[in-house]
């Protein structure tokens, strides 16, 4: 039962082309119904809100050719029923926007062979299941560079949600970026055990600032840490959306999720009958996320940040180039090598120089 991503991809692509795509849907007479299943409320002002903006973009671009439906705050337990219900109501394309929905999606997909599923993160594809996600770490590298320029105490504070690879490799990448400017940079990390809990995020930001961090990175959804940075006169980065207005004096840049173009592309593919399962991991150059305009930075700092972002975007700079050495001193990849995508996705160790506990 343990098939890895590669094997499945090869097989599934061939399968899907042959089996599932018989009849293209004609737009005018019969709009394509697209379902969106969110893990949080539409108004979480973070992950789910940004997916919903993508949905609105889809409606805007496609007009009468699509009709969208939202089901919010769905628990993994209920996901199969919600997806089946959407399928029974005629939805042909369903975006399931959380990793916790991934296994339920894999279970429900075979029972709805005429429905195409798009799972935001997962470990394998299937005949009618695609994976998509963005390489948010690319933005984290730029954050690290900026943080190193801005920090006087040489200490970054990082408010982390959960110890999952997505967060762990982001922390590693922030430090990679920071060390490229100043190898003496340090980081303090607080896990708040929530993607969204404004009060606790603010408390964590207070603790980090009290401990001398003067640039705050956040891997949680609410604007609370950034607002607090503003109040306490330190710097911070926005998450998920452009949070400039929450912290006019503290905001440096935000990592802005932008799923709309991808949603349009996939809906068009279904309508045209060319949908194929894929595993998309889009970087800065894909438009899946963007950096908000730099603020509170000198022109030199801003142009350096832009230069780094461009270098990553065009592939001249890769945040996971070797040498990569674990905190325990063992080498993962020597100089000249580079982590594979699967190695990045599964990263569960910190680099040497990052003193933070992880559950083992």
């Amino acid at each position, binding site marked *: 039962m343990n098939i890895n991503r590669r094997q499945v991809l090869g097989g599934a692509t061939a399968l899907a082309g042959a089996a599932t795509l018989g009849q293209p849907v004609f737009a005018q007479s019969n709009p394509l119904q697209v379902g969106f299943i969110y893990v949080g409320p539409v108004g979480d002002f973070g992950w789910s809100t940004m997916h919903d903006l993508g949905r609105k973009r889809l409606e805007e671009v496609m007009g009468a050719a699509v009709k969208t439906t939202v*089901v919010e705050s769905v628990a993994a337990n*209920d996901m199969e*029923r919600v997806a089946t219900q959407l399928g029974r109501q005629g939805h042909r394309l369903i975006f399931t926007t959380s*990793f916790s929905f991934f*296994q339920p999606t894999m279970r429900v997909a075979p029972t709805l062979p005429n429905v195409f599923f798009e799972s935001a*993160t997962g470990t394998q594809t299937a005949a009618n299941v695609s994976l998509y996600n963005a390489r948010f770490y690319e933005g984290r590298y730029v954050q690290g560079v900026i943080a190193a320029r801005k920090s006087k105490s040489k200490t970054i504070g990082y408010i982390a949600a*959960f110890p999952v*690879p997505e967060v762990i490799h982001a922390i590693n990448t922030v430090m990679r970026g920071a060390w490229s400017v100043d190898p003496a940079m340090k980081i303090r990390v607080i896990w708040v*055990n929530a993607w969204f809990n404004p009060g606790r995020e603010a408390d964590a930001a207070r603790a980090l600032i009290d401990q001398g961090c003067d640039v705050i990175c956040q891997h949680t959804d609410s604007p609370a840490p950034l607002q607090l940075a503003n109040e306490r006169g330190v710097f911070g980065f926005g998450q998920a959306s452009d949070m400039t207005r929450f912290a006019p004096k503290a905001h440096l840049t935000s990592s802005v999720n932008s799923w709309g173009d991808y949603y349009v592309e996939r809906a068009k593919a279904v309508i045209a009958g060319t949908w194929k399962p894929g595993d998309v991991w889009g970087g800065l150059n894909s438009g899946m996320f963007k950096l908000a305009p730099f603020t509170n930075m000198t022109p030199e700092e801003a142009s350096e940040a832009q230069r780094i972002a461009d270098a990553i975007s065009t592939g001249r700079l890769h945040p996971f180039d070797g040498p990569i050495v674990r905190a325990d001193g063992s080498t993962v990849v020597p100089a000249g090598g580079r982590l594979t995508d699967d190695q990045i996705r599964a990263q569960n160790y910190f680099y040497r120089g990052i003193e933070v506990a992880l559950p*083992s």
Partner: protein
Amino acid sequence: MRLVLSKRENSSRWMSLLSPLIAVALTIASGAVLFAAMGLDPAKALAIYFLSPISDTWALQELAVKATPLVLISVGLSLCYLSNNWNIGAEGQFVMGAIFGGGIAIATHGVANGPWVFPAMMLAGMIGGAALAMIPAMLKTRLSVNEILTSLMLVYIAELLLDWLVRGPWRDPKGFNFPQSVMFEAEAQTIRLTSDGRINIGTLIALVVVVLAAFLLSRMLKGFEIRLVGEAPRAARFAGFSQSRLTWTVFAISGALAGLAGIIEVGGTMGQLQPTISPGYGFTAIIVAFLGRLNPIGCLIAGVFLAITFIGGENAQIALRLPLDVTRVFQGLLLFFVLACDAFLIYRVRLVRSAPQERSA
């Protein structure tokens, strides 16, 4: 003018079982008014809310899946509440049951085992739930530490324990370090009853539990003891019943039932352990228990009713494009109506036109 309540003299048991149904009928009427006020076609909206969850065999099976944990947990909680033991930590006991049962599924993963695996998981789940429930029971009986606090705090601790396990030692080694356990083997999944839906053996178990609990409460000495301790603790003491032994018993039973619900849910709808495995079943079951008047058959009816409102809310999001919050407001209103109607059935409500004269007694 003011409202005056007086107890109805002939409140038969038949009536008290029927009253939730009458209340539902009344709430549907008021629901129609509400939907019309919201600019929706009331007939269509009501049909989606109340009929779509029971419209065909697939939907009925889903309803059973959703109602099963609520019924199982609420029956156990009823025993606690009847005897004045305020266990509000069923959510944690649910999680603990999933941890204990899931531990067996993970330990036996990858090895061919017999059909004993799932029964063993259920047993372990019951032990897990009961073990967690024993802590508030022990602290209450030994040190008179209030069980509301301990049982509630243990919910968060159990959830964090699961979180740690799934992100740490029990993480699927081939799962790209995502926070999930391995998928349970077929023999470790909750036994399904049909091939075209998700209804599973948990529903049968819940029905058996309802019948057993109803029998216990109405026909057996233990049931009498539970009621007596709750209603007249001093009389119970004179009758020689041990209050603390009863506390242990009802906590153990309700913990075991919540734990059982946990492992049935995990083995049935998730097929693996994830950091979050309950959409608040343990807390919702508290409402179910009281809506069902702490009566096992009442819990069954209330559990199904609440499950209908949850699924109806989901369907309203899909078919009526209502935001989740609006469906929640409606669910809250429904519950208010049901609770209010309930009062009308127990009490005779009269409008009295007179100056207040409370001091008359």
